[in-house]
Each structure stands twice: as structure tokens, then as C-alpha cells.
């Protein structure tokens, strides 16, 4: 009896070995290479890097392999690695206006400087299973454009800003807070909110953004621009005193513009919801932009009535590493507390029964 309810080190070791065996699967099949995951499951790698807040394609691919393709678990693994890394500096802000574009579309203009660049997207595919992938047929080579893209690819929002129709987002010069080094406190600044959303669970961002489209905190959004490509990361080493490039990262940026009828202090204009995420992740960037705009309700003097507008609700529940951990901690033993609840329920029932009996006797 004593052994039956206890875990024990041997059982835990055996469980770990079983996990490793189940990860390996059928040993007659070759193991997946981490490099294959990185190359051929690139969107999974992008999601894991985004939710882990760590840009490292190889380690993200390793995490996906280790987590047997469970992307939330993979993001957790990568975060637990990230937390041990020393900080030796902060990069300069990346400039997405200088992005090497792989894809750039705007839904608010038919055409615009630089043009609509479709790039790689599933948007115009028919979602039919491609059985040729079972037999590993090589796809045809992708065509290349006759001319290179315009070097100058201004953001679609630039014209609106120039005309004063879109709120400007001036740099107040303050060092942005770091959500991973300071606790989340409310009310949260927009910088903190954007950080929390950038690493938030993609499903949660999507659902929250979607809810604003269905009337729970409507923001009248237009996808002003979505761009995806590579940007240079620059740092200023103290001993040099000028910026140097340390590498390129791929990011997806989404700018939503939203109708705003104006307030006592602000003229009618468009407001902006902003999404910026690692890798190619348009669903994630768009969800983030919708939620970012919804969370500006308080600052814009709108009524905070919907879940997506409630920053404490959204930011406290966006992180799936926290959510998954806490939901699954219910698997841990709780029998001590349950025992005290059991005693409580039994004594409440006994007292209620005694009261009923007394009442019955009094009635007789």
C-alpha cells in the first residue's frame, strides 16, 4: 500500500527512458536530422523561436526534435536554455524599412511604391493534399524575377504618416524595459505589452485578435502592410563607438491601421496596431497587431469592455509556457489539500444532517 501511492526514483528513471524510446519511434527508420527540421519544418522553427524569444534556428530545430514536434514544449525547452545565457549588450533597433524583402503586401492600396510582392505564401494555394510529397518528388525550381525588387520599399504607412492621418509613434528616448528581466506590472507600457505579445502563444493571439473582429472590442482594422524578409542586426561595441552588423534575422512585420473618430485631445485619424515576430509568421504578426490595437483602448479613451482590451487579462494569460505549466501542474499530487477538503465536506455534511434532524424533531 505504501509503495503503491509513491513515485520513487526508479520509476522516474524508467519513465524518462520510455520517453526517449517513444521519441525515437521505429528504429528501422532513420532519425530525423536537426538540419532537416531547420530546413524543411522552417515555419515550426520560426514559431518556436518567436515564443522562446531566442533567435537560433539550429537550437529551435533541436528543441522541436527533442519535444517530438510539440511546439509549445519546444518553446519551453528553448526558453529554459535562453534563461541561462549571459547578456553582453543590446542591439540597436532593427529598421524594417531597410528590410531585404521576400514578401510585402498592402491591403489598403491597389499599388504602391515598390509594388505588391507576393513571395512564398500559402494564401493562393488550394488546400489539397499533395500526394507527391509522400514519394519525395523534387519540386520544380522556383522562377526568378526578370528584374530585382526596388531597392526602395517604403512602408505602406509612410504616406499616411506624412499626411498626418496616422498617429505617429515618437521615440521617447527611454530605454525600453525588458520583460524577461523585470516583472510584469500593471498598468503596462506599450513596450512591455508588445514584448509580451511577441512571445505570447500564437493560438491565444489569434483567438484574441479574432474576438475583436466579432464585436468584442471592435477596432475596424485594415492590413496596411505585411512584410517579411531579412534585416540586419547592429550593435555598438563600447570599444568602437560606432555600429557594426553582427548578422541578419528574418522577421515578419504587420501594421494594421484602425479607424479612430477622435477624442477631446486627438483629432480624427487612423491609429495603429503593430505586430513584429521572428521568422515567417503572418498569422502570428496579424493577431499581435489586432491585440496591440485593442489594448490601446485605455490610452485612447475608449471603453474597456471586451477581454481583448483588458491588458491584465490578456498579458497575464498570453504566455503558454506559464499556462501549460500551471494547467498541467494539476497532475502533481494534491492529496494533502484534498484530504483537508474531504474532512471539511464530511464535517459540513454531518452538521447539516444534525441540523435537519433537530429541525425534524422540533417539527414533531
Amino acid at each position, binding site marked *: 500500500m505504501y509503495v503503491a501511492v509513491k513515485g520513487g526514483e526508479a520509476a522516474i528513471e524508467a519513465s524518462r527512458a520510455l520517453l526517449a524510446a517513444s521519441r525515437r519511434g521505429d528504429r528501422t527508420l532513420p532519425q530525423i536530422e536537426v538540419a532537416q527540421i531547420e530546413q524543411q519544418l522552417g515555419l515550426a522553427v520560426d514559431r518556436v523561436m518567436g515564443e522562446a524569444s531566442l533567435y537560433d534556428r539550429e537550437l529551435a530545430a533541436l528543441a522541436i526534435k527533442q519535444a517530438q514536434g510539440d511546439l509549445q514544449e519546444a518553446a519551453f525547452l528553448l526558453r529554459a536554455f535562453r*534563461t541561462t545565457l549571459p547578456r553582453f549588450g543590446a542591439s540597436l533597433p532593427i529598421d524594417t524599412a531597410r528590410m531585404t524583402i521576400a514578401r510585402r503586401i498592402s491591403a489598403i492600396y491597389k499599388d504602391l511604391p515598390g509594388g505588391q510582392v507576393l513571395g512564398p505564401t500559402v494564401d493562393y494555394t488550394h488546400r489539397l493534399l499533395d500526394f507527391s510529397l509522400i514519394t519525395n518528388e523534387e519540386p520544380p525550381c522556383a522562377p526568378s524575377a526578370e528584374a530585382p525588387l526596388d531597392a526602395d520599399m517604403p512602408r505602406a504607412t509612410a504616406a499616411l504618416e506624412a499626411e498626418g492621418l496616422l498617429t505617429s509613434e515618437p521615440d521617447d528616448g527611454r530605454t525600453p524595459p525588458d520583460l524577461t528581466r523585470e516583472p510584469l506590472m500593471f498598468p503596462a507600457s506599450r513596450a512591455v505589452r508588445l514584448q509580451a505579445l511577441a512571445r505570447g502563444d500564437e493560438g491565444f493571439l489569434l483567438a484574441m485578435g479574432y474576438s475583436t473582429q466579432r464585436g468584442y472590442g471592435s477596432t475596424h482594422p485594415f492590413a496596411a502592410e505585411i512584410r517579411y524578409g531579412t534585416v540586419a542586426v547592429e550593435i555598438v561595441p563600447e570599444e568602437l563607438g560606432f555600429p557594426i552588423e553582427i548578422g541578419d534575422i528574418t522577421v515578419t512585420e504587420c501594421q494594421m491601421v484602425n479607424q479612430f473618430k477622435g477624442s477631446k485631445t486627438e483629432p480624427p485619424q487612423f491609429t495603429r496596431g503593430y505586430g513584429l515576430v521572428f521568422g515567417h509568421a503572418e498569422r502570428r504578426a496579424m493577431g499581435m497587431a489586432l491585440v496591440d490595437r485593442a489594448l490601446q483602448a485605455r490610452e485612447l479613451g475608449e471603453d474597456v469592455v471586451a477581454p481583448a482590451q483588458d491588458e491584465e487579462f490578456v498579458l497575464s494569460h498570453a504566455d503558454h509556457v*506559464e499556462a501549460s505549466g500551471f494547467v498541467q501542474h494539476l497532475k502533481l499530487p494534491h492529496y494533502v489539500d484534498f484530504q483537508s477538503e474531504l474532512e471539511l465536506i464530511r464535517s459540513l455534511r454531518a452538521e447539516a444532517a444534525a441540523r435537519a434532524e433537530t429541525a425534524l424533531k422540533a417539527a414533531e
Partner: protein
Amino acid sequence: MNTTSYTFAYLDEQTKREIRRALLKALAIPGHQVPFASREMPLARGWGTGGMQVTAAVIGRNDVLKVIDQGADDTTNAVSIRQFFSRVAGVRTTTRTEEATLIQTRHRIPETPLRPGQIMVYQVPQPEPLWRLEPSRAETRRLHALAEYGIMHVKLYEDIAQHGRITLAYDYPVLVHGRYVMAPSPIPAFDNPKLHRSPAIHLFGAGREKRIYAVPPYTDVISLAFEDHPFRPWKAEAACALCGSTESYLDEILIDDRGTRRYICSDTDWCERRRTRGKTA
């Protein structure tokens, strides 16, 4: 895990320093929740990441660590956390309460009285005692600042009005040093009196909620109650089937599917030590 690539006790020194600063503040303001930038740990949130960070911040090479969950040293998560610190800090571990200098716990305080110099580290799922009454942490922070605990007293009063008694059995709120209402973590109410004027240091770490709080030695910790409805810690009215103890907190073990039950000590160390001294049921 390749331990050589990690620092002593896993967390980097800056992070440990930051947590120690939060701990010092927490000890200086007993029962007050100090926000801290909780780090990701290689264990899931809700599985003791707060307690682990506190332990990592205070543990030294000469410490002797005991880890319990539900009072037992051999429950799965206690084993997992003990193995973790053996690996990343290489410290000596024990199951004996009096041997330990540092005890990380989930849901229990050992039956063996604690002594001066010992540190208890609690894993805390929900540091905010008012959360069921007011979900906004911005608002509860204000209520704590003003010592405005009316909603809690009304809740306890309503319990008595409806059920004839306070219907909290665990994580039973306490008033610390006459100032802050504090969640003692989900220990059974039976354990609350052990906190009152305890000679040990009690540190509480809530990793997911990013809060640290503390009860310094010899501090008043009073379970909330009313004069005419005094606090009553409960336990099963039985004796341990193994060691015969009647004063320890008991777990209920189902023997068959007809409701036959036996009770055993939840504190496995306490139970084993009694049996080695010749006590039986």
C-alpha cells in the same frame, strides 16, 4: 544535462543577486509580496519554479537540502527537484528534517519542530490571498497597501452565516506581523500554527506569478478568524496505521472499492523516525 556549462545552482550570479535582494526586502516587510523578474526554469511553471529560484539563490555548498511534496520525500516532483539540485549544485541531500539546513516544500510543513537557522522554501501557486475575491492584481496591490481587508473578512463571515463555519481547509489566510494578509501556500490549515513565531526563516517563491514573500523568525502569524468563531486546524480523527501517531497530519489511503480506509502520516520522515524508535500502530 551537461552540468559543466551551467553555473553553481543553475541560475547566473546576477539573477541570484537580484532574487536575494527581493528576499531581503521580503524579510524586511513580513508578508508583503515583492515582485521579481522570475526566470524560466527547466521545470514547468506551477511545478515549483518559484521555490527552485529561491532555493538556487540561497543555497551554498555546505547546505543540506531536503525536498518534500505532500510531506513526502519520495513523491515524484520532490525526487525530481532534489535530483536537480544534486546535479547543478552538488549539495548533500537528506530526508531528515533536523539534518536539513534548507527545506523546499510543496503543501506541507514538517511535523518535526523547526530550529533556528533552518530555512523553509515554499512553492507557491498563488501568492495573492485575495485573488478569489478580486482578480485584478493591480487592485489587490492597492488593497494591501491600504491594509483594506474588508472583502476577506466579509467572505469569512459569509462562510459562517451560510455553513456555520469557515470553509477554508488549505491555503488558509494569515495575518503576518499584524499588517499583511498572506497566503501561506496550499498547506493544510493544520500547518498554519507552525508558522507562528517559528524560529526558522520561511521564504515563499511564486515563479509563474513573479512574487516573493517571507516570514522572518519569531514573527506573529495569526490565522484569520473571529472571536466567537476561533480558528480550528483540522485533521482526520484517526491514528497513523504505521506508527500510531495521533498528532500528525494524516493521508487517507483507500484499501478497496467498498470505502475501507486507512490513515498514514503525510510526513514520511516523521513516520519513519517514529517507527525506528519502536512506535507502531
